[in-house]
C-alpha cells in the first residue's frame, strides 16, 4: 500500500471510491423521495425514522466526508492536470467523436452540483436535521418533510433551479459512474460499452426519479394519496 495515494492512479482511486459511494447515496435518496410522491405521512414516517438518531448522524458524517474527499481530490487532480497540460494551449482544437461532452467538463458540472447541494442543504437539511439538533423552531417543524417539499417545490423558481441542478447531475453521472469502474480496473473491451450504457441508464433513472418528484410537487399532482399532507 506504500505511497498509493501519492500516485496518479491512487488519487484517481479516491475519486472512484468516493464517487461510487455518493452514487449509492443518490440511489437511496431518490428512492426515499419517491415515497413523498405517494404519501405525505409515509414520507414523514421516513423523516422521523431517520431523524437525528446516532446511526443517521454517523451516516451523515461519513457521507459528508465522502463529499469532502471527492471535492478536494477533484481540485487537486484538476490543478495537477492543468500543470501537466502546460501553459501553451492549442490554437485550433476539435473534439474527437466518441468523446462525451460531460467527460471534459466534469469539474464545471461538479461545481454546479455542489452549489445545488448548498442550496438544498439550506432548504431542507438546515430546516430539518440541523434544526432538530439545535432545538430550533421553524414554521413546519423538523420532521414534517412533506410540508417542506410542498412549500419549496410549490415555488416555480425553486423548482426550476432544482431541475437545472439535476440535469447537471445527470451529465456528471453519465461519465462519472463508468469512469469510476474504469479507474478500479474493472473493465475490458466488452464491458467498456456495457458500463457506459449502464451509466446512462442509471443516471437517467436516478435523475428522473428526483425530477419527477420536483415537478409533481411544482404542478400540485403529488402526493397522489391522502392529501392534505400537513395533516392540517
Amino acid at each position, binding site marked *: *500500500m*506504500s505511497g*498509493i495515494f501519492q*500516485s*496518479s*492512479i*491512487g*488519487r*484517481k*482511486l479516491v475519486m472512484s471510491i468516493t464517487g461510487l459511494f455518493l452514487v449509492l447515496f443518490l440511489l437511496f435518496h431518490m428512492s426515499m423521495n419517491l415515497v413523498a410522491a405517494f404519501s405525505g405521512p409515509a414520507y414523514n414516517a421516513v423523516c422521523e425514522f431517520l431523524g437525528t438518531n446516532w446511526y443517521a448522524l454517523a451516516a451523515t458524517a461519513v457521507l459528508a466526508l465522502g463529499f469532502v474527499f471527492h471535492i478536494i481530490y477533484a481540485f487537486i*487532480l484538476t490543478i*495537477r*492536470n492543468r*500543470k*501537466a*497540460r*502546460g*501553459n*501553451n*494551449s*492549442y*490554437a*485550433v*482544437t*476539435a*473534439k*474527437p*467523436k*466518441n*468523446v*462525451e461532452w460531460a*467527460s*471534459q467538463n*466534469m469539474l464545471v458540472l461538479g461545481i454546479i452540483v455542489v452549489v445545488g447541494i448548498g442550496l438544498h442543504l439550506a432548504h431542507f437539511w438546515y430546516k430539518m436535521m440541523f434544526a432538530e439538533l439545535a432545538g430550533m423552531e421553524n414554521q413546519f417543524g423538523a420532521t414534517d418533510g412533506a410540508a417542506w417539499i410542498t412549500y419549496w417545490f410549490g415555488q416555480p423558481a425553486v423548482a426550476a433551479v432544482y431541475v437545472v441542478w439535476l440535469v447537471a447531475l445527470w451529465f456528471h453521472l453519465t*461519465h462519472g459512474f*463508468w*469512469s469510476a469502474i*474504469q*479507474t*478500479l*480496473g*474493472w*473493465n*475490458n*473491451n466488452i464491458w*467498456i460499452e456495457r458500463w457506459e450504457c449502464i451509466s446512462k441508464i442509471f443516471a437517467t433513472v436516478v435523475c428522473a426519479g428526483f425530477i419527477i418528484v420536483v415537478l409533481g410537487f411544482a404542478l400540485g399532482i403529488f402526493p397522489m394519496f391522502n392529501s392534505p399532507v400537513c395533516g392540517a
Partner: protein
Amino acid sequence: MAEKNITVTLRVWRQANAKAKGEFKDYKVTSTTDTSFLETLDILNEDLVSKGEEPITFDHDCREGICGMCSLYINGHPHGPATLATTCQLYMRRFKDGEVITVEPWRSAAFPVIKDLMVDRNAFDKIQQAGGYVSFNCGGAQDANAIPIPKEKADLAMDAATCVGCGACVAACKNGSAMLFVSAKVSQFALLPQGKAEAARRAKAMVAKMDELGFGNCTNTRACEAECPKGISISNIARLNREFLVAKLKD
C-alpha cells in the same frame, strides 16, 4: 480520383528554440492531392531554403507509419484529420483547395518544444527504461511454442504492442496524461506468460516514472483512444489500473 494541384495556406508554429517565444507564420504552398502532408512540408522547406530562410523543423523518419517519429497537431487533431493514421500517412487530398491548415507541435508540459514543430519526447524513453522490458538470462532461446498462449491473449498483447510511442495520446489529452502509452506498454507484456513474472514491478515502476515526469491524471475522456493512430483501446488503461492497484495492495 485524378491527381490535382492544391494550394493551401499552412499556418505553422515557428519557435527558434526551447526558450524562445513562438508564433504562427502563414506560408502559401502548392502541392498535389496525391502528395503526402510531410512531402508538402518538404516542398515548402525547399522553397524556404532557396530563399535563404530557415526551414521548418519537424520530426519524421520511416514515413510509413511504423516508427512513431512524426507528430504534428493539424487542424485540432494529433496526426491530422485522418483516423488510424500517422501524419506521414496523411495525404493532401484530405484538404480543400485554398484551405488554411493550422500546424502546431504537441503541447504538453512533459513534451517541451525543441524547435518549431519538434518536441522532446524523451520522457517516453525514460518511462520505457523504468520497466518497459522483459528480463531473462542469456542462453539458448526456447522453442517459440514451448509455452502455450491462448490466441485471444496473444492478439490483445499484439494490439497493445502496435503502439509506436508517438505521443499523440498525450497531445490529445486535456490533462496531458500518458496513460494510454504506459498502459499499452504494460499490457503488451502483462498479457503474456513471459511478461507476467515482472508485471507488478513493471506497472509500479512505469507509473512512478510517468508521475515523476509530470504527466497528468487520466479522467477517461477517451480522446487519446479516438486520436491514436494505432487504435490502442482504453481497456488497456483499465488493465494498467488493475495491475497497479493489485501490485500496490500486495506491498
